[in-house]
């Protein structure tokens, strides 16, 4: 890496290739590891159906049950704010849309960049608050281990470096842009090895939950 431009070109070229391959293959392996296990057919007489309730739970589980909302408001609200903010920054920022279009061939309209910037600021603050909560809430602190903090870090760094890059807070620009892209590649590489997989497996978890309950006539 003789110049920052060389660094940028590496992370945007071979670095991206490596990260994308590890990410894709890793995610697919993890998914098939789960799904191929299958489940035995249920011989008890069904009261309701599986598919409808299963699909319904995939969506309705997004809404917190009122008791949970009262007892864990911070986890619920904070969780939504940073997830939605993260997704807005990832999918509705025009330079990212260009990236996705070049990789997957799909495109959609973006948001004004200064609006995405505001969302990013809120997301970063919320992520810090979530870390604070994980360190201080008795249940979360009890449950959390190295993997929980690692996944927080690899999620936080792309937000932080993206913000720094957009505001050009580190000179020269190829360096800070390269750091941002590198931080995303780290996230991609770490992803399949950790609980970050929930981003894909939650669909199946919610479906199984709703299906098994629906079969018994309960909407979960």
């Amino acid at each position, binding site marked *: 890496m003789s110049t920052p431009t060389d660094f940028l070109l590496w992370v945007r070229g071979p670095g991206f290739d490596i990260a994308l391959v590890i990410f894709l293959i890793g995610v697919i392996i993890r998914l098939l590891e789960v799904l191929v296990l299958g489940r035995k057919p249920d011989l008890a007489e069904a009261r309701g159906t599986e598919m409808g309730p299963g699909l319904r739970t995939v969506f309705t589980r997004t809404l917190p049950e009122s008791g949970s909302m009262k007892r864990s408001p911070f986890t619920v609200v904070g969780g939504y704010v940073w997830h939605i903010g993260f997704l807005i920054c990832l999918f509705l920022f025009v330079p990212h849309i260009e990236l996705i279009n070049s990789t997957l061939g799909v495109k959609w309209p973006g948001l004004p960049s200064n609006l995405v910037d505001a969302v990013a600021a809120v997301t970063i603050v919320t992520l810090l608050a979530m870390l604070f909560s994980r360190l201080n809430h008795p249940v979360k602190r009890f449950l959390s281990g190295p993997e929980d903090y690692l996944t927080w870090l690899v999620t936080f760094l792309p937000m932080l470096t993206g913000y720094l890059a957009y505001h050009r807070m580190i000179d020269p620009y190829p360096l800070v842009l390269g750091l941002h892209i590198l931080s995303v590649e780290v996230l991609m590489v770490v992803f399949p090895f950790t609980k970050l997989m929930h981003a894909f497996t939650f669909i199946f978890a919610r479906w*199984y939950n709703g299906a098994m309950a629906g079969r018994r006539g309960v909407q979960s």
Partner: protein
Amino acid sequence: MSGATLERGLNAFREQMNAPVAAFFSSCVNCGMCAEACLFYTETGDPKYTPINKLEPFRRVWEREYTIFGKIKSMLGLTKPVTDELLAEWEELIYDGCTLCGRCSMVCPVGNDVSYMIRRAREGFVAAGYAPDGIKNASRRAVTIGSPMGVKFPALQAQIKHVEADTGLEIPLDKAGADYMALLSSMEIINFPEYLEALARIFKQAGVSWTISSEAFEATNSGIQIGASDIARELVGRVVDAAEKLKVKYVISPECGHAYTAIRWEGPNLIGRPYNFKVIHILELLDELRASGRIKTEGTDDDRLTFHDPCQIVRKGGVLESPRNLLNMVTSEFVDMKDHREMNWCCGGGGGVSAIERAEELRLKVFKRKTSQLEELKVDKLVTACANCRLVMEEGLEEYKLEIPIVGLTEMIAEYLVEDKE
């Protein structure tokens, strides 16, 4: 047989792995929201009762043996194995501290059915020898005597004679070709004989053709509670054999929570085939009779009262509407708890907990959740439809010095039957 060993336990964990379990473990992000739905956490403040935490031994087997990366991590010495010490430490979390109520499964944001996993994880604990003595003994009695509380047929026979004398009605025994075969839980036979009497009177009025089998009258399934499918299969098999021998159309599951789970949902999967009869919960049957006009009641209970939804019947069982349809028929001042129906809170004694002597202090402590619900409503009476809940709640209300009488729903319906005005 070889007795319980760690290896048998690990083997059982391996057998219990399937796509739902793997999806659930993959998705947990340690958000802790399941703890806030579990009365064992909310009433003790001890994070070890967080539902997903109760599954740690099962989770380790999943990670180390069912994921490629987990296998690599193990080779590098980065994961911890399941040991006897771990299982010994976790025993009280997964047995004393969990009733399989399923509330956690309703709130997990990524959709994990934690209660489903706990049921399967118990298979490993029991095969390794780590179940509390109370439920071990209940299982032994259930298999050898036929009832976890040691109730033998003669004891039931005595009850039957009492009821026949009091009501002047016959309780048909071993009647082949009857439409319905009724099961009873030991708890009902010993503590709440009003249930049997209510059945006799209601079925007489409604003209229901029914019977009880002298060979298999016990509804409670200790095998489900201890988590040993092999034992559960043995116990449920007795009921199935009797029902199919008598060629009944339906088996009635009584006012006992886990009995319904056992016969309605687990049974066919345990024996490996569908039944030659259907299963109906007594409340479902009563609701059908009500809807078709075969039960006539007069008058209502005018006390301000509420209903405790037994977890295995309502949330886990799917008998959602019947209780309230029936209550609407015979009460005038019914109010629901804020968290009601599928989201009601467990009494704290199901799933075997009430059989564990050493868990009594914990069980009474977490009962505070139920008393909070009741105090908020300021009711004069409590109705429920599970004999175990009923006993647990009677003990709990006494502990907290709340004078609220508890009534069984079936018993309550019988009380207002028209024909039985004496």
